[in-house]
Structures are given as C-alpha cells and as structure tokens.
C-alpha cells in the first residue's frame, strides 16, 4: 500500500478546559494519597483517635495540645511531599500524571519553568493561614480570568494549557 501524502498532524496549545483540570487534579491527589503517602498510613493510625464521633475527637485534641501539635507537623510533612510531587513532575515533564492522562501542560509566561514558579503554583497546599484561603480564592479567580488562571498561577506567571492535534 502506498503511503498517502496526507498533511502531518499539527499540535498546538490552547486554553485548558476547567473540567479536565479538575479531573486531572483529582487523579493527582488520589495518586498522592494512595501510593506516595502510603507510608504515612501507619503513622496516622497510631495518632488519630479511634473515636465514635467528630465532637469527641475535637474535644480530645483541644485538651491535648501535644497531639494536635504532632498532627500539625505530620500535615506539614504531607503538604511538603505533595508540593514536591507537583514541582518535580511539572519541572521534569511539564505535566503531572493527572495532566498526562488528560493532555494538559503547565506553561510559563517566561522562558522556562523555574522552581519558585512551581512552588508558588502549589502553595495552596500549605495547611496554614493565609495559604488555606487559596482553596477558596483560587477556583473563584479561575472563573473570572480570561485564561481561567488561578490566583496562584497569576502570581507565578504560569498557566495550564491543553494540547490539541489537528
């Protein structure tokens, strides 16, 4: 069979769909929780109270500040690993596994993606004030910007794009 002289497929990057970004994020978080943070499971089992209700746990943690301090430290370690996950993938491959599945990429408005940019993109994962505010602000801002950029993305001069082939 002769090769047909069809024009080659062209690829270009354009604004990523919000739904795809949400799905990619869910995939990444599941991956982090089920595989990467698996070693932390035993640690959590040993410190999280086996209680019948949320109020009892809350009451216990309020009375025992040492335990809440321990949980905070572990939360920081978990956040650090999760941030490292996004930073490493986006620096080395330009996309995290969730984004790989959905053909999404992270782009810098400057030349290359720098580590500080990748950190700022993921700083919403730091479990302390004021970073936790980004959990609410980031998605809201996303719906009001032209290129659906999160606030963290605007601050880091990055954006998430989708690869299309024609």
């Amino acid at each position: 069979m002769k090769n047909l002289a069809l024009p080659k497929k062209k690829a270009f990057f354009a604004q990523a769909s919000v739904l795809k970004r949400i799905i990619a994020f869910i995939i990444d978080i599941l991956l982090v929780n089920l595989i990467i943070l698996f070693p932390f499971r035993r640690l959590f089992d040993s410190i999280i109270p086996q209680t019948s209700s949320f109020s009892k746990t809350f009451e216990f943690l309020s009375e025992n500040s040492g335990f809440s301090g321990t949980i905070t430290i572990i939360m920081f370690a978990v956040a650090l690993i999760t941030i490292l996950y996004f930073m490493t993938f986006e620096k080395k491959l330009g996309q995290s596994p969730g984004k790989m599945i959905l053909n999404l990429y992270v782009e810098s408005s400057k030349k290359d993606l720098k580590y500080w940019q990748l950190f700022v993109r993921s700083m919403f994962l730091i479990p302390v004030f004021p970073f936790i505010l980004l959990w609410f602000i980031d998605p809201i801002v996303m719906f009001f910007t032209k290129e659906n950029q999160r606030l963290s993305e605007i601050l880091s001069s990055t954006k998430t794009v989708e690869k299309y082939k024609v």
Partner: protein
Amino acid sequence: MKKQQTNKWTRALMIIIYLTILSFFISIFLSLFIDDSFESLDGNVAVIEITGPIVAQKDSGLLFTDVTSSDEVRKLIKKADKSDKIKAIVFEINSPGGSAVASDEIAAEIKKINKTTVAWIREVGASGGYWIASSTDYIIANRMSITGSIGVIASYLGFSGFIEEHNVTYERLVSGKFKDLGIPFKDLTSEERLLFQKSLDKIHDYFIDEIAINRNLKKSDVKKIATGQFYIGAEAKDLGLIDELGSRDEVIDYVEKQIGEEANLAKYKKEKGFLAALSQTMNERFFYIGKGLGSSFFAEAESPKSISIIT
C-alpha cells in the same frame, strides 16, 4: 512519538518511586518522635504506666530511655482524677524500683485519688515499684511476676584505690566533717559508714511502715519479709503482698465490679509532641555546648550526687 510517550511514563513511574521512598523515610523519621497515644477516647478507666527505673525528673540524655518520672506521673494522676469520665485508674507496673523520693511522691499522689485504683504488676513490680503498687486499693500480678524486694540500697563504686594507683590525690577541702560523705574518691570512715547506715535504716523503716499501712499488715510481719528479697507472684499472694493472681482480664473484672459498668481502658501517657521532643533535644545540646564539656565533668565530680538512695 509513541516511544517518547512511553519514555515519559517510565520517567513518571521513576519519580513516583523516588517520592514514595522519600515519603517512607520522612514517615519513619517522624515516627521516632511519636508515642502511641491511647486505646480509646471513650475510656472510663485510665491506665497509667510505671515503666523502668523511677526517677523524680527526666534528666538530659534520657530522651530515648524508658524511665518513669514522678513529675509526669503525678500530672497524669491529677488529670485522670479530675476527669468526670474516668471512674477508675489502673497502674500498669513494670518497674524494678528507683528513687525513694520519687516512689514516695507517686504513692502519696495515688492515696489522694477518690476513685478506684488498681495496680497491675506485669513482669516486675519490685522495691519502689512495689511501694507504688501497695498504695493502690488492689494489686493483681502474674504468678511469675517479680515483686517485693522491700529494701534500700545506696551502694556505689569507690575509686580511692584506683586514683591512688594512678598517682592522683583527692585534696580534701571541707568545712563540716561529713560534707564529702559518699564521695567515691575516698574510703568511708567507720563513723561515716554508721551515719550512712542509720539513714538507710530510717528510710527502710519508712518503707516498711508504708507497706504495713497500705496493705493492712502488721509492721512486725512486714519487717520479717522486708529483707530486700524478691518474691514471685504466687509467693507474694501467700504473704499478703498482693491480692490476686491474674492479668489484664482479672484487672478489668475487678474494675467492672467496683465501678458497676463496662470498663473501657484509656491509656494516659505523657504527650511527646514532635516539636517538644525536638526542642528538648536542642535545649540539652545548646546547654552543654554553652557549659562546656570540661565544666560539665567538673560539676559532676564535685557534686555529692554521686550517691543516690534507691528503693
């Protein structure tokens, strides 16, 4: 193109493996500073552990050593006693004894409790450990547990011959002839030995008094068995030093009978948060850097603390 894609997934897999290994090491590191906390939050029976040597305060260098400090135990007792949810307190004892003062402090605190108290002797509940056990309402021990050992010890290593052999002299500079009593660099005089023995006998007498009162025994009977000898659980039961032979189930049965409801154990342990442990370690290290190793040794040598009275 396809090859490039496969290569990308291989690299992704490698990154996942690296991050999982990193996560594993971080979790192991953190677990070094975390104690297992409690059995249940809904517990109505507090379990307080008396493990290892009994000391008054946790000293520097004991971060990873299993000791019981009377300061910590007293705090836990107060906390459990104050809690309305707690109906009884079980002391899980596995201790060969320790400081006479620390043991007496814990025993005195136990006597102030207005709730059912039980001592559960595991492998060893001897000397100071037994003193603490005797101050509870009821003692349960395994038939092979080591208990008793009602006596006082203050023996120490003397270095007078050693320093003499190495041409080192002990320059005695004291005002008050017994000021350097117990310094290991000189032999005890017969007068000093007598003085020492008198104090030990007095402490032994306090110990016997306490056991007699706590166990409702005649002082003369306790005196007969207070030779420092240890007794296994079965012997201790015959001598009236313990109330029952048994283990966890017997402890729960007794507590349930006393409180009239199902017993749910809640372990009361000293909180050892990561930051607390880390700051404790750093404080100790900075203290010693500042103080200097030499002066630290000097302080040890000049201090008459080289002798401790142990029950």
